[in-house]
């Protein structure tokens, strides 16, 4: 019996941990519905999530057994389809739930799903295919062009929705996979350097020191890069600093506010800062041991926004305390470590790259989602894998899991 179960899971450790997290999520969604004036949306969300979990298990069972060639083969069509879907979303997309203002969802019949969820996975597969066919390290900027473009296309479409959180997941995918494909860390840092420029250019003196440091770094690194590449990095930094202010001005007020309240939530405690303050209050008041499962007053009395979706972890913090949060963080860490471990053991470059791509996406999701509940990261509408409520999100997370175990255990 246990043997059968082990057989079914393909990778008992990874799938066991993820199943545990999904059940934990369903329990927390149940708790999120336990408020003093029952809300039809959150009240029975846990049941719907349970149903989706069942569907996800069916999908997992099937996908974990398809020939790996199919997975490689489906990468390109899936990528093309998801790009088309993302483009369509920009036209006919709708908002949903707590993110009513964006166009991230496509409604088909009574069901709505986020094409970006499909796109992430498709991008991982297509980039894995591309990079696995290379035999050499990606040493130059030019080497990075193709994978960056593959990721950049869906990323750009997602930014237009706008869904900054998911866009960050694409960045995570890109960097994790590039690293696994043998890109030197220094090069990755150089690629990322304009982003830092973007943020620190408000202070001219600070930015001046920074750009000098970048140039100095390029000088020591000069034998590894072409001159034009070094110049490009410097120019990109200048460009980022230059567009920083226009870019800021072009942001919608709510987006600006999110960044401002990230720096200090108390500037607008009843407006943009409300979510993060209430979330911190919830988490903080949980203390070491928490208020008890289903008993958190912040959640019960509606102070917590989006308590069953994006801010589910605040409920964890409030009701299960530091013990609960550390346990959950440890469980996520275990899942992520297991992905890396599988990649390490897998001689197949494609498998390793897929695992690292999934790792990159999940790491961003987990870190950003959990981090935003305590104000560590600006608030972006990004769900917590396996735990947050959301049917297609659970399904896609499990599809990713199935693909991960399938490619990992192909010998």
């Amino acid at each position, binding site marked *: 019996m246990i043997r059968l179960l082990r057989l079914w899971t393909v990778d008992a450790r990874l799938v066991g941990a993820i199943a545990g997290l999904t059940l934990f999520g369903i329990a927390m969604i149940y708790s999120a519905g336990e408020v003093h004036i029952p809300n039809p949306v959150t009240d029975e969300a846990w049941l719907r999530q349970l149903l989706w979990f069942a569907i996800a298990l069916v999908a997992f069972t099937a996908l974990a057994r398809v020939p790996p060639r199919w997975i490689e083969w489906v990468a390109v069509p899936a990528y093309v389809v998801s790009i088309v879907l993302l483009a369509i979303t920009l036209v006919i997309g709708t908002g949903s739930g707590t993110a009513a203002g964006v166009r991230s969802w496509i409604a088909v019949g009574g069901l709505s799903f986020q094409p970006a969820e499909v796109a992430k996975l498709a991008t991982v597969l297509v980039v894995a295919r591309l990079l696995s066919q290379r035999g050499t390290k990606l040493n130059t900027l030019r080497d990075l062009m193709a994978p960056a473009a593959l990721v950049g296309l869906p990323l750009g479409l997602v930014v237009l929705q706008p869904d900054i959180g998911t866009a960050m997941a694409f960045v995570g995918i890109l960097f994790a996979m590039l690293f696994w494909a043998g890109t030197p860390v220094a090069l990755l840092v150089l690629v990322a350097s304009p982003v830092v420029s973007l943020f620190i250019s408000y202070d001219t003196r600070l930015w001046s020191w920074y750009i000098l440091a970048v140039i100095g770094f390029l000088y020591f690194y000069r034998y590894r890069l072409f001159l034009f590449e070094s110049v490009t990095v410097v120019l990109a930094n200048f460009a980022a600093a230059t567009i920083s202010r226009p870019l800021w001005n072009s942001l919608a007020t709510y987006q600006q506010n999110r960044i401002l309240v990230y720096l200090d939530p108390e500037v607008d405690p009843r407006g943009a800062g409300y979510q993060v303050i209430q979330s911190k209050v919830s988490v903080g008041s949980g*203390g070491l041991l928490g208020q008890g499962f289903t008993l958190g007053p912040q959640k019960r009395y509606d102070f917590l926004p989006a308590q069953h979706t994006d801010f589910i972890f605040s409920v964890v913090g409030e009701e299960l305390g530091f013990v609960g949060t550390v346990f959950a963080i440890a469980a996520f860490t275990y899942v992520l470590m297991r992905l890396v471990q599988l990649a390490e053991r897998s001689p197949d470059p494609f498998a390793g790259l897929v695992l690292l791509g999934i790792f990159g996406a999940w790491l961003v999701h987990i870190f950003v989602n959990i981090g935003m509940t305590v104000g560590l990261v600006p608030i972006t509408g990004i769900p917590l894998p396996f735990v947050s409520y959301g049917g297609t999100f659970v399904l896609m997370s499990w599809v990713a899991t199935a693909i991960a175990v399938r490619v990992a255990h192909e010998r």
Partner: protein
Amino acid sequence: MSLYLPHERQRRALGVYLVLAVFMVTLAIAFFRIQVLRSSTWELRAESNRIRQLPVPTPRGIIYDREGRILADNVPGYAITVLPGPIDSVRATLNRMSEYVQLPASEVDRVLSTMQRFGREVVVDADADFAVVSAIQERRAEFPGVYVEMRPRRRYALGGAAAHVLGYVGEVTAEELESEEFLGERYTRGMIVGKTGIEKQYESMLQGRQGLKYVEFDARGRIVGDFTGVSTDEGEAGSELHLNIDLELQQWIDHIFPDTMAGAVVALDPADGGVLALYSAPTFDPNAFVGGIDPTLWAGLATDERKPLFDRSVLGLYPPASTWKLAAAGIALDLGVVVPDEHMQVPCTGGWYWGNRYWRCWDAGGHGYQTLAEAIGNSCDVYFYQLGLRVGLDQMLRRATDIGFSRRCGVDLPQESQGIFPEDRTWWERNFGYRATEGEVLNLAIGQGPNSQTPLKIAQFYLALARDNVSAPAPMVVRGEPIAEGWGLNLAPEHIEAMREGLRMVTAPGGTAHFGTALEHWEVIGKTGTGQNAQSAQDHAWFAGMAGPPGAPPEIVVAVIVEFGDAGSTVASPIASKTADYYLRRKHGIPVDTIQTYGEHLRVGRPAPWYRRRFPPRGEGT
């Protein structure tokens, strides 16, 4: 491919582990900081998030009459309070509420501006109907930030009969809160305080101390329930108050006072100056003020020509007319310028030439030679002109001022008019622009001229006559030690007796007020007055006097004024007499009868066998 050789993979995996560790440890540290190190701060914040302090209203002190009967108490009521929140959502809530509660746009604006100004809860309806309360409670989810609480509601047992003396309560206004009286922590917005009368005068006693409780609210301001973590401070109920007022007497006066007439009745207890009854007509229902008066009702009361809100007993100023002759007589006796049995030089022939004008007596028929008592009995003006001249203007002004005719009595009520009486000769220059001549004293001696007094002040003067020690304490509505006596006449007992004899003649057979005052069991003595006034050809009718068992000291002092009541003998004196009769009968355990005076017996044709006994015809008695 060398790129994916085991040792290469291992090296890179190590790098990934490192990055993973940095991210996850960062998260763990952040949670450790917030959940372990700063937990108590956030816990406090969570509590202040949802737990709010709300006042617990305590019942006002009960007001009892002299017999311990309830004049004012409290019944359970409901108040609807709106808690502060985003202004638009509060406005939306109030608009939704207006389906159930009468809430005009101006009231919505008032609530919102008060909320913005003070940033705390505002009482929308301090006296909500039960139907409204249950409608709102049922739709609790629709009314975020709305809080319904039990709040004791004031009830005045006598309604209009004691409206002026007891006063009424209402929500404290912003202006009041800034006044000295309501400073300190004891008073907060939304509290119910005394606005007039005894309720205002003894506010600090009646108020008690408001309690405090902790209530849990959800994020949308909906009530979750009482927070049990901190015990509720129940506050303290207000202290009770015992008045000298006689509830039934007050009610009786309200009953007998003519509905169409305006005026006042003051009844004092000669023993200590306690106020037995203080009545002003027309009156109003103070219960209508509890929980905020209906604006149309208020407009009606405020603009009513008869001024029902005006307390005539302590605020109304009337020329005292002949009732003041006793004051002139008292001053003259005190100064020793008249002797009771002596006649004045000039007999009354219906008038008197003095100076260069003819001074009329009210009775053109004349009164001839009279003693002081006879002059009082006849209310003879000619006698009192001469008495006034003997006293002299300066002395008259000085002594009348000593007695307090230009001051307040000091009654324990928040408002009392000061009498108008010249303190010295400069008064005429200041007010009329001419020098006073000695002739002014003639007018003053008969209660005319620049002399206006409240019914209470006149009653207080007669109180002095009724008391053997010839001094008048400040009339007190609330029971307690009489306030130090303010003034005295220093009259010998025989002088008092002479004045009382004069009062007796007024009500004796043949006296002007006889039929209206003659009672079976009691001797009523007093003085009528006919106060001329500028507003009407009809004069104000006065009667001031005292009553008690025949031959015994007086047990009640009554002053009555009926506006435009014409002569005092016809309207005012029966009211005074009936007031005294009612009080004394109950005091002495004699059944009360509605047909009281001899005049009433004659009018309704009911035999009065007692009349011959009480007033034996001349020659028949012993």
